[in-house]
């Protein structure tokens, strides 16, 4: 069965990733760590966009809440790592539940706008609540536990967290719930008339997506020993959306691949030209007009032709 083969391939990808520190220098270790963090962020986002058809414009909020909570709990309050990390994720989940409760009442443009408005509110609070977040200077000097405070160790920590989260997300999207979520995306009205409480299904997606975004945010904090208000700004929400589209929202791994592409493009283009935003913009236009299903969509199509 395809599902099983895919799992095997993901397993191979996992092993390949696990070998990165052994075969490459520190810079790849850093780059891949960063890619893995944003891949998780994008995977969480795609639960909303790809599976739920919900265009959230404020997904950065939960990333930022997880990131700040992790920083504050570990550093300011000095909690033990597991409690701090866990509580940060829990806080993202709770915020997503509260915010999501109001957002899923709206549809389409209004849903997007309310998610944006809430995310901007989170940003404004992070910006103004200087005593806790250190405002625009950024929260630096995060107390990262010694056992993971080393690039390769942190790489493996991230890899394991990513693998666990990706597996959970994979199970979720293929579960009975995942199928129902897709049904609500395909036809909101029909789903209601088979007895599905569509809002509640969407709320669960919102909370799950927020939770995993929170995990990504907490990882980001641990990786950088810092969090910045920019992580809550709407451009971060736009970025995760671009990642998902680049990779393809129609496939499970698409957004993760998109995260890798965007980060690699971002790094390499900036070295070639100061006009990297234009190049990125043109790539985006090309995807929109010629490959609307993203890179994974292209790969699938080519695969079908090849067969």
């Amino acid at each position, binding site marked *: 069965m395809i599902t099983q083969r895919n799992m095997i391939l993901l397993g191979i990808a996992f092993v390949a990733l696990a070998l990165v520190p052994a075969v490459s220098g520190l810079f790849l270790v850093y780059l891949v760590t960063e890619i893995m963090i944003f891949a998780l962020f994008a995977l969480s986002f795609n639960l909303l966009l790809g599976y739920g058809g919900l265009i959230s414009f404020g997904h950065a909020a939960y990333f930022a809440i997880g990131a700040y909570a992790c920083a504050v709990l570990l550093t300011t309050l000095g909690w033990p790592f597991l409690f701090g990390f866990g509580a940060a994720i829990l806080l993202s989940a709770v915020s997503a539940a509260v915010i999501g409760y109001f957002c899923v009442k709206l549809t389409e443009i209004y849903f997007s*706008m309310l998610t944006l408005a809430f995310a901007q509110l989170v940003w404004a609070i992070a910006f103004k609540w200087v005593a806790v977040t250190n405002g625009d200077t950024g929260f630096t000097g995060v107390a990262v536990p010694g056992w993971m405070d080393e690039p390769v160790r942190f790489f493996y920590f991230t890899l394991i967290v990513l693998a666990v989260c990706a597996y959970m997300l994979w199970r979720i999207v293929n579960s009975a719930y995942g199928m129902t979520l897709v049904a609500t995306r395909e036809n909101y009205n029909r789903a209601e008339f088979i007895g599905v409480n569509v809002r509640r299904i969407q709320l669960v997606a919102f909370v799950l997506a927020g939770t995993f975004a929170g995990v990504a945010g907490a990882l980001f904090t641990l990786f950088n020993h810092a969090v910045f208000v920019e992580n809550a700004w709407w451009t971060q929400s736009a970025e995760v959306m671009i990642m998902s589209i680049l990779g393809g929202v129609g496939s499970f791994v698409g957004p993760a691949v998109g995260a890798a592409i965007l980060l690699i493009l971002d790094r390499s283009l900036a070295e070639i030209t100061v006009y990297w935003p234009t190049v990125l*913009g043109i790539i985006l236009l090309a995807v*929109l007009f010629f490959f*609307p299903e993203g890179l994974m969509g292209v790969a699938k199509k080519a695969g079908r032709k090849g067969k």
Partner: protein
Amino acid sequence: MFNNPVLTFIQLMNGISLGMNLFIIAAGLTLILGVLRVLNFAHGAFYMMGGYICFSLVGLFAGLPGGFWLAVVGSAIALAAFAWVVETTMLRHLYDRDHLYQLLFTFALVMIISDLVRFNWGTNVLSVSLPNGFRGATDLGISFYPTYRLLLTGMGIFVAISMWYFVNKTRAGRFVRAARQDREMLESLGINVGRVYMLVFVAGSALAGLGGALAAPAVSLAPGMDAEIIVQCFIIVIIGGLGSLGGAFVGALMLGLLKSFGVMLIPNFEIVLIYLMMVIVLMFRPWGLLGKPEAK
């Protein structure tokens, strides 16, 4: 603070004139949103282009009488032309697609336009001098007030009235209203909906250009000015109601007044308050203060 009537009056004028400048820009955005249903993130970039083009045209028309005004008109026309190119070559092919793709398209535009501006005008802060005759202040009886800001106020009201007239009293305006409500109905009437969309996009963008050109002497030009304005415009449009011109007018005034009186009443937290306002409106009245709820 209200025990100083002169101060209150000036703050009122500050709020109104700021609101009116914002209205010109937000009116274009709400028009596009209402009719095309496109969340146009590039609207701020169009505003920025308007400002920069005005800067260049002011230099070009330096010798001519009324050069500044020519430059303002020229900027609006330039943006209309630019929008026409964008619409006919790209945007129109996306109308049938999910609005996610339209959103992404406008992101791509933002990236490319900001680079175009950088390439053409550099990253120095540029300023456009206030036009002759508008450098000083005018006696309003209660106090003196900067003449150029009075002009901005007047322009905002002028645009509001002309747009109201256009939308409510002209044949073309009727189509725009109809397109806002029901695209299919318009098609069944044999109207070329594609043309209505194109004209709305062009007109909305011209308003962004006009707003940018008029703002240029007051705000000075710098990269990043697009990002600042777009968030404000979205706030206005949401508070007023997507697609509602009257709503944009009220929303712009509210935002302007909140800014001028907010710094006196709730210094430091206006930024939180603005987003809170946006959240509350969307939660309880998602169609905005003056918009109408959509029938499902």
